[in-house]
């Protein structure tokens, strides 16, 4: 749907040099949205139409509160579009399209492992909340640059969920030093040993991941190796955000080896990891 979101909170998230923002919008999207979906926000300085930037910006839903009709977007100021978005003030209305795309699917029972790289953690927060609501066990693996980043990007909110956290930083200032995938690998081999096996032992584990492409690819390879189902949330440059322009395709491969293109905006952004062709060319 095309709708407006009233800015009720718009604040700096964590340390200023991290350039992260938290934006809470009031409007009807919360009623129908699910974790993994996104909105396409029109970024314009005040109400004067300008065409630079021209296109809307896709931002994931980091929190969905249907009871308060609120959605939370967490974003990093990246370029001109998000720079302009950051100027939106409380009381302003932002034009939104959404909820867009297919979200994550939750297992009925068992354990959900979230694997996040950097700000890829943002959409996983909404997923953690709905998984906990449903009574699933949730664990977060999260890797970032350093302690300042993790704390700025929402670590306190994750701690408040009281779930097990496996943190890693590149410089070792918080959690383990190294990559998030090393932590995931460690935990998988602890549970299942070093050889590939059918994941039939209880509790059943499902993985959902979001972050840099290379990281999601490595997570997928690990999961496939341990026969753990994995969902990945992809990013691509978007034009229409509704499946009409074919600007945002990704390449999938099915069991028979047939390649096809899917639209990240409409068929995704969440896909089954084992179906994704990571180098993208075909």
């Amino acid at each position, binding site marked *: *749907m*095309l709708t407006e979101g009233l800015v009720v909170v718009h604040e700096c998230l964590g340390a200023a040099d991290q350039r992260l923002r938290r934006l809470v919008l009031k409007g009807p999207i919360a009623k129908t949205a699910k974790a993994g979906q996104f909105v396409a926000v*029109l970024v314009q300085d005040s109400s004067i*139409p300008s*065409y*630079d*930037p*021209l*296109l*809307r910006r896709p931002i994931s839903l980091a929190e969905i509160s249907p009871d308060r009709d609120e959605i939370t977007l967490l974003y990093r100021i990246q370029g001109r579009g998000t720079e302009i978005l950051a100027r939106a003030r409380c009381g302003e209305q932002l*034009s939104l*399209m959404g909820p867009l795309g297919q979200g994550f699917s939750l297992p009925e029972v068992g354990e959900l492992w979230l694997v996040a790289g950097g700000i890829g953690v943002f959409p996983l927060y909404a997923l953690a909340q709905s998984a906990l609501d449903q009574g699933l066990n949730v664990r977060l693996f999260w890797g970032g640059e350093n302690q300042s980043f993790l704390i700025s990007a929402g670590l306190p909110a994750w701690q408040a969920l009281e779930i097990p956290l496996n943190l890693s930083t590149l410089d070792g200032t918080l959690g383990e030093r190294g990559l998030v995938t090393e932590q995931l690998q460690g935990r998988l081999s602890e549970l299942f040993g070093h050889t590939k096996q059918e994941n039939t032992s209880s509790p059943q584990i499902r993985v959902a991941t979001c972050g840099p492409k290379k990281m999601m690819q490595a997570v997928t390879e690990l999961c496939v190796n341990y026969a753990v189902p994995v969902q990945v949330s992809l990013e*691509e*440059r*978007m*034009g*229409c*955000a*509704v*499946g*009409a*322009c*074919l*600007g*945002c*395709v*990704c390449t999938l491969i099915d069991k028979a080896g047939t*390649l096809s*293109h899917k639209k990240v905006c*409409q068929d995704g952004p969440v896909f089954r990891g084992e179906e994704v062709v990571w180098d*993208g*060319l*075909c």
Partner: protein
Amino acid sequence: MDCVDLTTVLAGITLRNPVVTCSGTYGFGEEYADYCPLEALGGITLKGITPLPRLGNSVPRLAETPAGLLNSVGLENPGLEDFLVSYLPKVRKMPTAVIANISGFSLEDYVQMARALQVDSGLAALEVNISCPNVKHGGMHFGTDPHSAEEVIAAVKAVTNLPTIAKLSPNVTDIVEMARAAQRGGADALSLINTLLGMRIDIEQQRPLLANTFGGLSGPAIRPVAVRMVWQVAEAVDLPIIGMGGITTWQDAVEFLLAGATAISIGTGNFVNPQAPLEIIQGIKGYCEKHGLTSVRNLVGLAHKG
């Protein structure tokens, strides 16, 4: 005055209003259904199809420029056969005029598709995208060579009973020459303009931004070029024109009508505001009322007179 007649006639088809959507920006008609009811539109133009399925170019396929969008989708489409089976049946039921768009890499490609698309298919018209390389002629674009353009349009006209719209490329020295060629080929109407060839370079990576290096520029950035071309063609050729290129507001649309377009088409503007077509229809109506015009048809080409 509350009764402005918005209907318009184009290549023998009556449109409920002069507002259409552009090929390649409106999918196969269903994608925007939640945002803009099809029954409100004058018509829609479907994504360009080719005889065989195409996967198109690699990503990134999109890059923004000030007020513009570069795309290098590369004509990704399901191919003629799947189009006939999976899409055409739905198109039949759509409550608006549906224009199919065909692209080819040889004369035979165009003929094969035109033959399969007739009045009884439920389509209102056939738009022939000639902004493609002719692989049999060393990649020379159909749309930049008047002789090839005339030949393609004539070949299409010979095998289909649908009204035929020639969609012209702006990447030419003389748009009027191309419009005349399409007219000689027997085109019933003209669509202009297609995208302008452009590129961007990522200065950090020091590489072209688009995987395909070049892309077609659309959006408000190209509007003045499009208005100029519509104006020139309207002066020289007696065929109805669908004007397009950077329309996002009703004021833009009125500019095209005044320049000589019988109808206008919205492409990239849908991405910015998926309700732009609805607002533009209302805006055109309001403009006619304000200027004492009883029919939108009276607006067409008005800027040329006097």
